[in-house]
């Protein structure tokens, strides 16, 4: 019957194509009786085919549809099929009609889970879904099958269920593999996992602290020192204190806004000292040859005097400061000219940032020249998040 539908497909109208795609016979002279007979036969035959397969697999063993099967067996099977299903024909007719109608309705309307309806009715039809119903199980694919038994063994050893997919979560697999790779190395050093972790912790404890020492027994009271600490081992190195810089720093402070006592945290945050109590820096310095008595370290380390202007430049509201690319602050400089451009700019700002950010408009320089069409010479827009 399906074959009867297929040839009409190329030459029939859209209505025929629709009918054929839904399993209805094509043609304009169809009445209800014909329609019902046609569909019940179709449904019964398909059901019979499926049941045949099941029954034959269970009871007869060899497949009667296979060409190698003897003819006698095939005829016996057909006969027995007719005998078994003849009693249910009337009931099947109604059921087939219901299925067809529900399919049609489900295509026209969103009827919810069609499979659910079928499941309720006890009729399971295998329909391929566009999405994988259970991704983890379905991802057991070629890559998983390629996987050897080693990983499975590792997974079992780690307490991971065997059904757990090996390649669905790459990161987890990687960790497992890394752990697998690390373990022999540690064993090779005859050290357990915990000892290695402890060792890494002791490595972390090594640090370098830059301190300012005031010692009234020294010729210069104030000095900078670098303290390298690894566990209980403390090493102190001199940090050359440039007193001139200190005085210059003081002079600057006196001339302008001076610093807060407790405001050092801000300053420290802003100053990007490479040695400023970072353990990485400490390790690097410890790795240096020690014949320089710390003088090189002093050169690399910015003194406190150089921090002050840094802080000011960063904290200043100067519109000339380039905005950080990661910050929501942006500057538009040297916007010329015509009112049209200005409107464009404002529109851009309106569209892009106004809804999310508050805007401060800073007009740094406004001048007017009647000969030119450019009224607005320099307009800077500074948008700051949560400015108000």
């Amino acid at each position, binding site marked *: 019957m399906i074959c009867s539908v297929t040839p009409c497909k190329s030459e029939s109208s859209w209505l025929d194509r629709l009918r054929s795609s839904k399993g209805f016979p094509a043609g304009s002279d169809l009445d209800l009786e014909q329609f019902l007979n046609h569909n019940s036969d179709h449904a019964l035959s398909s059901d019979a085919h499926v049941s045949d397969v099941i029954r034959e697999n269970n009871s007869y063993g060899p497949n009667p549809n296979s060409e190698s099967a003897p003819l006698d067996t095939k005829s016996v099977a057909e006969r027995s099929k007719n005998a078994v299903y003849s009693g249910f024909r009337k009931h099947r007719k109604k059921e087939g009609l219901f299925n067809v109608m529900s399919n049609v309705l489900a295509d026209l309307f969103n009827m919810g889970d069609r499979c659910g309806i079928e499941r309720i009715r006890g009729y399971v039809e295998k329909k391929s879904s566009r999405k994988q119903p259970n991704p983890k199980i379905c991802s057991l694919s070629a890559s998983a099958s390629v996987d050897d038994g080693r990983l499975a063994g590792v997974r079992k050893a780690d307490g991971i269920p065997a059904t757990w997919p090996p390649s669905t979560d790459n990161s987890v697999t990687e960790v497992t593999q890394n752990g697998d790779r690390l373990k022999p190395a540690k064993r090779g050093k005859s050290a357990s996992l915990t000892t290695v972790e402890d060792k890494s912790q002791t490595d972390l404890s090594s640090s370098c602290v830059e301190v300012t*020492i005031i010692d009234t*027994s020294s010729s210069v009271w104030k000095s900078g020192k670098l*303290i390298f600490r690894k566990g209980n081992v403390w090493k102190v190195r001199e940090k050359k204190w440039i007193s001139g810089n200190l005085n210059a720093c003081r002079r600057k*402070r006196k001339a302008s*806004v001076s610093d807060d006592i407790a405001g050092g945290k801000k300053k420290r945050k802003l100053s990007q000292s490479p040695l400023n109590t970072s353990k990485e820096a400490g390790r690097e310095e410890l790795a240096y040859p020690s014949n320089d008595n710390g003088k090189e370290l002093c050169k690399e380390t910015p003194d406190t005097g150089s921090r002050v202007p840094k802080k000011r430049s960063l904290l200043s509201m100067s519109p000339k400061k380039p905005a950080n690319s990661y910050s929501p602050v942006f500057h538009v400089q040297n916007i010329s000219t015509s009112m049209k451009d200005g409107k464009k700019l404002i529109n851009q700002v309106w569209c892009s940032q106004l809804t999310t950010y508050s805007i401060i408009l800073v007009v740094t320089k406004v001048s007017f020249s009647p000969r030119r069409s450019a009224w607005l010479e320099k307009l800077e827009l500074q948008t700051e998040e949560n400015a108000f």
Partner: protein
Amino acid sequence: MLRRVAGVDMDSQQERLFIIFHHWIRIIFLLHLIDSLPKGLGISNDSLTDSNFWDINHTREEKGTRIADCVILSLLMAPPKKSKKTKKKSAALKKGKISNIVPQEPKAIESDWWESFWMKNSSAGATVPSDEAEGFKYFFRVSRRTFDYICSLVQQDLVSRPPSGLINIEGRLLSVEKQVGIALRRLASGESQVSVGWAFGVGQSTVSQVTWRFIEAMEERAKHHLKWPNPERIEEIKSKFEAAFGLPNCCGAIDATHIVMTLPAVETSADWSDPANNYSMFLQGIVDDEMRFLDIVTGWPGGMTVARLLKCSGFFKLCESQQRLNERAKVLSKGVEIREFIVGEVNYPLLSWLITPYGSNDLTSSMADFNEKHKAARSLAAKAFSQLKGAWRILHKIMWRPDKCKLPSIILVCCLLHNIIIDCGDTLQSDVSLSDHHDLGYGKESCQQVDPQGKIMRANLTKHLQNCKQKHSTN
């Protein structure tokens, strides 16, 4: 040009934009970001009289256009000659707000600061003395005379000169006395900058600036109040120690305390963590018989041991290189020589120039006597630290994330002020010093390091004390 702009048809969105634009400009005025905008924007009453404003406004009224247009146009209609002024003023703005706020003619320096402060704060608490002189000491820890001396020390650095001088809320320049008062109150009370500022009628930032300027000035100009004494003074100290505690040739007592602070919970702060699980900075001091600091070292992390702190100090190096405590040895009876030394706690090593007490096990009577005398002598250092932390409560209160580069300066200045009080003959109020130990919560882990020469020294001192006791009993 006006017509062309006015001829632009504006839809509702653009009209909204212009209104928002108008508000932006108002905000700019309020924030004082730019004071050089054309005055015709109609913000202040003064600007209403400006000719530019009226010209433009009149024109626009005739045309019957919207107010938003007027704002925009008045913004854009800035006279060209004002641009230079704008540049100048914006440059001045970059230098600092103060220059912009300070009036052209400096107002009178605030000299009656104490009267107003006393009026405001005399009834602040029940503990404030009713007497004004006592009240002055209560707030600033020093007498009026010592206060004036401190002012004279820092006068040159703190004098306010326009335009950079600091001002109070009314716009009057802060006098040196008031600045010193602010700084002393901040150090003495340890209260927040806001509280201190409220008491003086200044802002928090002014308190911050003034305190730090005072600290810097004191660091430079009060150094002579903290120095190792000359030989004459050393002899005086020795005789006082011997008279008071029976310890010959003792030049002072050493102790250390922790200045506790809070630090951010990051890994780098761990270096400042001490055995009591605080973040702290060490202060080691050697005091004389009058509890004056003769030598201090500070800035080292509190996680160190005291013995290590000593070894890191310049005093240790000087003593080890025979440059200090090596003046004149005292010859006791039977030809026993006692060199100059200081006394310290059990957490210090026993050295030839640093004598620690005996351990608590198996003590003979002579040893116990020695320990008693020793304890009395070294308690001077503990008392000094108690007074220091009690008088200058900024050291006693837990500092909130201080700049560890600046904290040593604060500690030093507090020690300088402590010495100035002693040098000027002031006495602290009786309830000022801490009632409990200056380093509460820190155990004294005994140092196992023993120098043979130190052991001999300690034995000789014990014998000497025993002989003295015997002589005393026979007499």
